[in-house]
């Protein structure tokens, strides 16, 4: 069953030996010559689970990968039960909200400190499980880099996502994220990346959500 169609891939809800699973399929692009298309699809299908595994090594929960099919450019992975942070954040009490944002900040700090940049860090791509765990999903645009610019873009996306969907508590939420981030990455790295975020905003290349 198709549950999401993006520019890069489609997500299907499937059964994996009695477990709920997500099948992520990168569709061939008709505009690319087949040789190039194949090469890109294969590379990305390989890269995504690798980064998910690296994230786990950094202490950041990501879905379990069941199967990678390079030929078909598909990844079968665990369906993470829970709700997108986007859906729940506004309904939480202030303390819970701050705690959740702090936890998210810590996990982003862990990713960045381990040379991983998520690439699409929004509250839609973070799942809150029924037991209160936080799981990061969709590493399709992720990169292994230690560039401050890439980290800045990551946090800028986070800030923008918070500001657009959780505007009532935007400042408080982002401050909590940064507090968690600082706890893991250190004061220097946190300041550096915040400066970058401000610079990216001044560049005006990213717009506020409609």
């Amino acid at each position, binding site marked *: 069953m198709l549950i999401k169609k*993006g*520019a*890069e891939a489609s997500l299907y809800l499937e059964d994996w030996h009695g477990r709920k699973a997500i099948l992520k399929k990168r569709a061939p*692009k*008709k*505009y*690319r*010559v087949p*040789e*190039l298309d194949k*090469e*890109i699809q294969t590379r990305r299908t390989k890269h995504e689970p690798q980064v998910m595994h690296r994230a786990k090594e950094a202490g950041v929960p990501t879905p379990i990968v069941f199967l990678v099919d390079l030929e078909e450019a598909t990844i079968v992975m665990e369906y993470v039960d829970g709700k997108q942070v986007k859906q729940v954040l506004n309904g939480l009490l202030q303390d819970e909200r701050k705690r959740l944002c702090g936890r998210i900040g810590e996990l982003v700090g862990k990713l960045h400190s381990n040379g991983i940049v998520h*690439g*699409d860090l929004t509250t839609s791509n973070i799942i809150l499980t029924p037991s209160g765990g936080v799981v990061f999903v969709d590493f399709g*645009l992720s*990169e292994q880099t230690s560039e401050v610019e*890439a980290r800045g*873009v990551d946090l800028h996306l986070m800030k923008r996502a918070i500001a657009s969907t959780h505007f009532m508590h935007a400042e408080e939420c982002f401050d909590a994220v940064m507090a968690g981030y600082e706890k893991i990455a250190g004061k220097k790295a946190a300041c550096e990346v915040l400066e970058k975020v401000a610079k990216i905003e001044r*560049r*005006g*290349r*990213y*717009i*506020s959500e*409609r």
Partner: protein
Amino acid sequence: MCLPKIVGSVRKGYCLGIESTADDFGAGVVAFGGEVLSNVNDTYVPERGGIHPREAARHHADVAGKVIAEALKRAKIGYNELAAIAFSQGPGLGPCLRTGATAARALASYLSIPLVGVNHCVAHIEIGKHATGARDPVALYVSGGNTIVSAYEARRYRVFGETLDIAVGNCLDVFVREAGLRAEARKAPGKVVEELAAKGKRFVSLPYTVKGMDLSFSGLLTAAVSLLREKKVAIEDVCFSFQETAFSMLTEVTERVLAHTEKGEVLLTGGVAANLRLQSMLRTMAEDHGTRFLVVPREFSADNGAMIAWAGILNFNHGITIPVEKSFVKLKWRLDTVEVPWVEEQEC
């Protein structure tokens, strides 16, 4: 979905546009109603190597009088019929910009008519919209100096994706030069690659660098040039692989911006827009998304004076003019810092 429309009063009169950001010196006359009456151009061709800014500026100064006079002659109007002078205020090469600006200031002062400083990137998008009827597109603007994926949002053309290093046109230019291919000086470098690529069959893997909605061409250029020097792969196949890689990157980021913004049109504009392979890739992608694909006509794809005149009219109609004493050129004037109040969103 919100569709912008062009607003503002349409007056009678003509605007002269002067373009001189890089190797082209252009002058065009456009009527306030939107009709392009003339579009004259003279290109500086370096004896060897790339554009030397000072040499290009010298060329522009030499031809300015002739090109402007020719533009008015072809438009069949006199200087006294001009209501405004528009010029490319940036971004571009300093000496070249200053030459065009000097001509524009002198004319505006002499004729006592308003001067309009136009952003070169805005002009490429506006002439594309004007010539194709696009209303609210995702615009891919590709040229020797710029590679930008942009869409209108809240009073500005926002930059969603762009090159992190060199422009795609620059990448093509340098490749052609390094390959010693520029046999006919009058032929655009992109055309040389396009023709050779059409004969290529074998695809060779080259660096494909897309980062989110941004791209990078420097690695591709280096790899393509070394592949050529090794002489193990036929030049047609190198051109084919080089072009396929570069244009697939452009199409992919355009697709991402299209999916993100949910616009209903894709507009291709700028000098590289003339490439038929790039057009066909974007058309395929746009059709896959059920959106319209539009491409700027050839006469307006490269840098030209008419696009400056048209953007000048849009600005002028919104009271945006600039006093001569404040008309400094802006070498790094970003597209997304310019307000474009004439594109206004209709009520949804």
